[in-house]
């Protein structure tokens, strides 16, 4: 509130701002992954004909597998990109 208080805490505010930005970015990433996951597994597993509100057995099994595969694909692609990046950095 006072000038003293503001000027005194400006440095610690700077570090906090960095962490805030990182946290905001991470939250954005998580939300983006979540939304992609939900929309892709919904379009793959849930049939367009809704006879009832609950997921039946086939759909729940499909969603379990869909989520697992999504993260597997994520991991594999990440590893390949990593190797490509490392190879390019090592070569050039």
């Amino acid at each position, binding site marked *: 509130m006072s000038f003293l208080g503001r000027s005194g805490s400006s440095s610690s505010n700077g570090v906090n701002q960095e962490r805030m930005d990182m946290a905001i970015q991470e939250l954005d990433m*998580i939300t983006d992954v*979540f*939304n992609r996951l939900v929309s892709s597994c919904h379009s793959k*597993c849930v*049939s367009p004909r809704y006879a009832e509100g609950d997921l*039946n*057995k*086939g759909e729940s*099994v*499909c969603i379990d597998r869909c989520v697992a595969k999504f993260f597997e694909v994520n991991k594999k692609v990440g590893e390949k990109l990593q190797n490509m990046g490392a190879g390019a950095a090592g070569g050039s």
Partner: protein
Amino acid sequence: MNSPPLVAPIFPAGKEPLPPGFSEEEREQLMQAKKYQAWTNMGMESCVTKSVFAGGGGFVIGAFFSLMSSSFAYEDPLLRQNLSTRQKASEIFKEMGRGMWKSGKGFGKVGALFAGIECVIESYRARNDMVNPIAAGFVTGGILARNAGPKAAFGGGIAFAAFSAAIDLFLRRETPEED
């Protein structure tokens, strides 16, 4: 858990939003209750449970049909003429019971087999469509007629598959929209 909409429902462990009306001290109880609820739901949806329920339902239906059809039973009146009324009645009831048990066992086997096999096929394919009951009907018919030779088993399978297809077409029909 009620999280605000448009936010991914991912929270740091121990900081999930509590539903209204619960305090912080009840969080652990709530988590435990949620865990048990999840286990119960998983159990209810499992193939074994479905098979058991279908078998039980089949048993009840078979026993009921046998009970109703025992009212049409006739027999030779000279068969039990040397028994008192009480003994005759008790023997008749015992035969009714045996018939109910036998018929119930048969229907129960059919129900349990069909439900179990359909659930397994559906879990394997991860899809819910008409193929599951038809295939399950074929396998069940084949299993039930296994002692009568391969052609009879195949024919029984086809027949049961057609029957099960008819039932599932009826169950999945488009119902008229109620306003």
